[in-house]
């Protein structure tokens, strides 16, 4: 238990009772070594370049999906503004580095700050309101920024083509590794940092506060949880990493245009969360990998892809509301040991949450 916020409470709590958990360092170290070595192995092969590119996209998009899941799935705020925050991050760092000549390493730090600021500005009026209102205002915000990006002043938005020729990262003495491998490491670091932060948040007092708010609002408010403050914090927190991913993506691809506001982008990320398993911790990560893989695998389907995605979204929402990840995880656990004999310490609290949403009435 390394969390400083949790430490004072730990003495009074059984380690299995609360959400204060330590990660499994062995698994993480194992995955970390693989992730570090992977690009060097892959780049020796011809097709490796493409796979490394896809991995970069995976890292960045899964940061977005995880942050959105935090808002949409975990705390039940129906916000559709996440792509707008992504775009805000991208635009801010692109403008700073192109027009003001900032170093990309410096300007990309401004991206998450700008996105958080935007989130707080939009969150202040909306988050006091309930479900439907949030859907409307965030969708309208998305639409508004999209309109602005395609029709706004040309020196800011870049017009129809967007901003092209955004300076890329300069890796200085490390550039011997190659730009792609270096970009991979940058994306990997941001993915790890974001995932760790979100994991920490999941398993913290704030994490239990927002799942309490989602599952039984009256009870949570009665226990003195400030709903508005928690929601605003989450909104800003998720926008922070989304903006960072937007900034990194812009520098990696070297451009950003109003096409980021296209409905298909929003749908793709939404599908990552919902199909992967919203409200669970691993769901969005798994969903990102699944959808990026499908995107390549189903390239022949072309126009039918969106149709399939839409149907899949509806089907998952109706038939398997928990999504793919919790089912896979439980299946794997059952395979490893017989159900019921599991050590309670090993069961993640997210599992209980997803089971509740699926089955029946909670605290009323």
């Amino acid at each position: 238990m390394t969390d400083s916020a949790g430490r004072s409470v730990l003495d009074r709590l059984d380690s299995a009772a609360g959400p204060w958990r330590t990660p499994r360092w062995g698994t993480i170290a194992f995955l970390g070594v693989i992730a570090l070595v992977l690009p060097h192995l892959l780049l020796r092969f011809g097709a490796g370049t493409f796979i490394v590119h896809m991995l970069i996209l995976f890292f960045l998009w899964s940061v977005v999906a995880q942050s959105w899941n935090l808002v949409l799935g975990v705390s039940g705020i129906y916000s559709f503004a996440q792509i707008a925050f992504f775009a805000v991050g991208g635009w801010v760092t692109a403008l700073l580095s192109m027009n003001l000549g900032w170093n990309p390493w410096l300007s990309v730090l401004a991206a998450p700050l700008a996105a958080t600021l935007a989130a707080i500005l939009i969150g202040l009026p909306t988050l006091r309101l309930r479900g439907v209102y949030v859907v409307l205002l965030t969708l309208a915000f998305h639409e508004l920024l999209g309109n602005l990006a395609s029709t706004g002043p040309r020196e800011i938005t870049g017009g129809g083509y967007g901003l092209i020729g955004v300076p890329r990262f300069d890796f200085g003495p490390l550039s011997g590794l190659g730009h792609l491998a270096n970009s991979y490491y940058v994306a990997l670091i941001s993915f790890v940092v974001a995932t760790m932060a979100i994991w920490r948040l999941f398993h913290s007092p704030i994490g239990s506060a927002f799942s309490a708010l989602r599952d039984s609002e009256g009870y949570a408010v009665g226990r003195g949880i400030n709903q508005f403050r928690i929601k605003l914090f989450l909104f800003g927190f998720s926008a922070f990493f989304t903006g960072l991913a937007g900034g990194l993506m812009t520098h990696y691809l070297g451009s950003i245009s109003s096409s980021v506001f296209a409905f298909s982008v929003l749908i793709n990320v939404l599908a990552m969360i919902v199909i992967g398993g919203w409200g669970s911790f691993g769901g969005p990560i798994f969903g990102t990998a699944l959808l990026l893989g499908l995107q390549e695998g189903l390239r022949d389907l072309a126009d039918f892809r969106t149709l399939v995605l839409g149907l899949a979204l509806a089907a998952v929402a109706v038939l398997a509301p928990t999504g793919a990840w919790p089912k896979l995880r439980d299946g794997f656990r059952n395979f490893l040991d017989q159900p019921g004999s599991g050590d309670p310490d090993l069961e993640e609290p997210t599992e209980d949450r997803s089971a509740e949403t699926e089955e029946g009435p909670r605290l009323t």
Partner: protein
Amino acid sequence: MRPVLQALWGGILSGSVYGLMAIGLTLIWGTVRLLNLAHGALYVVGAYAAWTVLEILGLPLAAAIVAAVVVAAIFGYGIHLLVVRPLLGRAGWDSASIIATVGVAIALTAAALLIFGPRVKQIPPVVPGSVIFSGVRFSYQGMVIVAVAVVSLLSLFFYLANSRQGMAIRAVSQDMDASALMGVPVETTYARVMMISAGLAGLAGVLLSSLLFLSPNSGFAPMIIALMVTIFGGLGSVKGTIVAAYLIGILESTVQVYLGGSWSLPVLFLFMIAVLIIRPNGLFGVTEAHRL
């Protein structure tokens, strides 16, 4: 005088169509407690159905309007069967239903794109020509649209107020359990509301597509504005929605006349935020705070 008149006429015209869209949303919200984000897709379904009848079968516009309403209503019933009924009464209804309707919207839009292609289409006006009154052009087509919309809204209003089915709808929206105990068929009422609402979206689709262009994505913008109208009028309130539709229509067209078209969305957005801060329940809303 001329810009004022122009803004007024434009507002009444678009307000009528927004009213048709928004009434459907508010009905579903009031009775089923469903935020139907597939409403814009139903608009597109109706418009393409009408276009097919007009351009491919070569039938008159009256037949096209009927086709739009009927086809959209059938799709509405389909959504009821496939999405609403399996989800009803389940925990997590809010989130699951929103995502499911988003999925339906995506699938319908993609299907329209596959069948009809990305090229924009236009539904030809029934009665070409216009009359010019103190410098403002009033097209006959616009008058037909306003007339059809107003007649539909009025008949819906009387249907809800006086008919047995309408009373059943209102009873269910007030208290589902009580009306079920009184022998109101709740399931059937839900299905009926879904069909009426979808039919109205289809009607809005055929009417507005004779003024604007029709493409697979063209239902999105009207849906956003219809959502604003519903919320401004107070979710679940029919009277409030109709008043709000015309107010928003007039506001939008005033902004377009005086500031230019690209300002209408930002101004509407700021207006909505202001309204929600000052009157969170809309114009005629009754303590909606506890409904979701």
